């Protein structure tokens, strides 16, 4: 059983979901619902077990590299198809397979009404999604990471467009893929740049390229800035940051568990992972770090403001994800990579919880997603209610739930970077608390505002759906305890120590304990006030027809989609149309045809010589003879 021991067992982690994809994908017309669900979830459970084994057996220090085969090996360039097992990747493996497993279980019940073929297709895509994400975090170099990177893009495309009969959904799927591709292009160029300078794309060669191991650096400051900036552009696509964030809210077109998968376990965290993975490069590029922080902060604030006035339960959660991702980028930009990874983890718990909870609500409401037509669901959906509450408290950052610790770490890092950043981040945190509890009170508080038929239909979801909710709620509570700040508990911040082989602990400016307590107290107090405001405003539903301009602006998401539409999409479309219907046929092909036409015109002119009249021919003959004779006559003379 050498295969099942460390490190070879790591091969199983991506292979199992791949196997699930193949079996469910090829056998979807023959397998029953039960078999499909068992296969789909079973491979995930096994992958989770394998991830746990890898996690526990992980040797300290240097990463373990598993090389499967050579992907590309030509002369200088060597890109192995290899996996890297270290603290960072094993942590992500746990998150992805663990939460992925719960979402699979949840989906088994949630999607049960689909026909077997579609059910099988759904689980196949889901497994493929997880496979791609695993490839992404396990890859030992940028190219394998990129393979997973594009793979999750593809799977999100397939899953967002899962209900492909609705044209709007198919459109949303296209949008997600294309926007991701814009980022991917930047990522690719960064890879080429890296290859050009260092001849290697492996993560383990990065220290060498930076010249930290007693060698001269292969990368100049300019190279590092360029590469990191391009990588960041790639990350903005995948992790939905300004300017490429607009696909994520539209991605709500997919089934709700898919949204949970995209927002919590896979896909959007890829950008954070990639930058945390490249932390050595980023630390060497302070300018880019500032850009990352600013973009993250701006995204966090922008998305939070939009979320204030959204009425679709999933849209609110989607914008909250964009906002939380902005927080993570703020942490990255502040150099607090561990804080970002920490927030990825806690966010995975509570965002999965919130999405699955919203799925439970939507399930109970018979597909209704508008929170204005919900309300008072507390009684009929008790488990969903309590778990959703925990999720909201966690995301708002209430002590001692997981969100508190990770958000606190981020706020602290922002404070260290600049008090202005801290102030904006804090305000965003307050907005977060406000819109999350607006959502919560509108959904569960007050009285029921749906139709009579919906009221009759209201029911708590089956065990397969509530069990994941309960587990995720527990995780949302305790998940933050691995990163308790040093001031509260000595040696409490185990995450920093655990990740230190990958992310070197930066020494330097510490804040005094008093400052740290003041910051914590400030944010906690303000968040509570913010929740109170939300309670007082939304405990009883009041129609909020937006009259003022700002509210309308927020409701329409700052018109960013419209802006892109008229600035980029429309001009491109019009240019393409102009080329297709005018330039190509009239000018380019016109020149080609023009040559043919001019030949025809000339021949038309000469045609009169060949009139077909014998008399004419004789005349020309005589004229010719006379000409020849007279020429001869005169030349002789």
């Amino acid at each position, binding site marked *: 059983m050498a295969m099942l021991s460390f490190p070879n067992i790591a091969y199983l982690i991506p292979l199992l979901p791949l196997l699930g994809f193949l079996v469910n994908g090829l056998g979807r017309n023959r397998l029953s619902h039960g078999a499909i669900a068992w296969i789909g979830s079973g491979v995930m459970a096994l992958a989770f077990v394998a991830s746990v084994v890898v996690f526990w057996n992980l040797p300290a220090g240097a990463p373990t590299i598993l090389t499967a085969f050579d992907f590309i090996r030509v002369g200088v360039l060597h890109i192995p198809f290899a996996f890297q097992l270290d603290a960072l990747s094993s942590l992500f493996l746990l998150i992805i397979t663990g939460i992925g497993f719960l979402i699979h279980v949840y989906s088994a019940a949630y999607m049960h009404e689909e026909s077997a073929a579609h059910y099988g297709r759904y689980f196949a895509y889901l497994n493929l999604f997880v496979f791609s994400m695993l490839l992404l975090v396990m890859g030992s170099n940028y190219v394998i990471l990129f393979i997973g990177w594009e793979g999750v893009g593809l799977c999100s495309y397939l899953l967002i467009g899962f209900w492909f009969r609705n044209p709007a959904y198919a459109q949303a799927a296209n949008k997600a893929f294309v926007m991701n591709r814009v980022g991917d292009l930047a990522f690719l160029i960064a890879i080429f740049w890296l290859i050009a300078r260092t001849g290697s794309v492996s993560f383990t060669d990065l220290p060498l390229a930076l010249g930290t191991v007693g060698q001269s650096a292969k990368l100049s400051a300019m190279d590092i800035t360029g590469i990191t900036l391009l990588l960041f552009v790639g990350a903005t696509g995948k992790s939905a940051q300004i300017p490429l964030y607009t696909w994520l809210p539209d991605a709500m077109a997919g089934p709700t568990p898919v949204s949970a998968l995209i927002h919590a376990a896979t896909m959007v965290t890829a950008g954070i992972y990639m930058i945390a993975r490249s932390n050595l490069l980023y630390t060497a590029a302070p300018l880019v770090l500032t850009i990352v922080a600013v973009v993250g902060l701006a995204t966090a604030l922008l998305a939070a403001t939009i979320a204030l006035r959204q009425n679709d339960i999933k849209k609110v959660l989607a914008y909250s994800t964009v906002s939380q991702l902005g927080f993570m980028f703020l942490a990255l930009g502040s150099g607090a990579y561990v804080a970002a990874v920490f927030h990825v983890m806690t966010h995975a718990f509570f965002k999965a919880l919130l999405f699955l909870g919203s799925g439970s609500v939507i399930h109970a409401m018979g597909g209704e997603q508008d929170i204005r037509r919900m309300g008072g669901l507390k009684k009929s959906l008790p488990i969903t209610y309590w778990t959703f509450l925990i999720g909201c408290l966690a995301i708002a950052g209430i002590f001692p739930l997981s969100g508190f610790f990770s958000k606190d770490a981020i706020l602290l890092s922002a404070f260290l970077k600049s008090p202005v950043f801290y102030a904006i981040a804090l305000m965003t945190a307050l907005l977060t608390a406000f819109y999350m509890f607006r959502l919560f009170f509108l959904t569960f508080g007050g009285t029921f505002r749906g139709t009579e038929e919906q009221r009759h239909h209201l029911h708590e979801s089956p065990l397969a759906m509530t069990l994941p909710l309960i587990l995720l709620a527990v995780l949302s509570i305790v998940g933050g305890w691995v990163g308790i700040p040093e001031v509260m508990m000595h040696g409490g911040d185990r995450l920093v120590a655990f990740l230190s082989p990958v992310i070197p602990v930066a020494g330097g400016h510490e804040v005094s304990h008093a400052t740290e307590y003041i910051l914590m107290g400030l944010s906690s107090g303000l968040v509570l006030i913010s929740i109170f405001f939300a309670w007082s405003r939304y405990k009883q539903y009041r129609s909020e027809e937006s009259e003022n301009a700002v509210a309308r602006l927020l409701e329409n998401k700052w018109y960013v989609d419209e802006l892109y539409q008229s600035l980029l999409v429309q001009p491109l479309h019009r240019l393409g149309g102009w080329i297709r219907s005018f330039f190509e046929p009239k000018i380019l092909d016109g020149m080609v045809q023009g040559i043919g036409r001019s030949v025809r015109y000339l021949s038309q002119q000469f045609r009169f010589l060949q*009139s*077909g*009249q*014998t*008399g004419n021919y*004789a*005349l020309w003959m*005589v004229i010719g003879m006379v000409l020849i004779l007279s020429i001869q006559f005169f030349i002789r003379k």
Partner: protein
Amino acid sequence: MPINYYLFLSLALFSIGMVGVLTRRNAIIIFMCIELMLNAVNLLLVAFSKMHHLKNLAIDPMVGVDGQLFVFFIMVVAAAEVSVGLAIIVMMYRNVHSVDIQFLNRLKH
């Protein structure tokens, strides 16, 4: 008689024939004009043959005879041509009741 007279007569006959061929539309007249041109050439051949014969009689009694021979050839060919050509014209007249060459240009299409 100097050769010039024959030359001018022959040239005149040939030109009349040529102009006839070029300008007339009646196939029979064109035919006659062709004959006229042929005979102008015949006349020329005979005249030159006679001239050479008289000039070189002392050296070779047979000189210039080939010119006369050519005339016979041309007459035979012309006769054949007339018989075939006239036959065609007659056939055409029977079919379309016209010998106008402007009208008979269907082969062009």
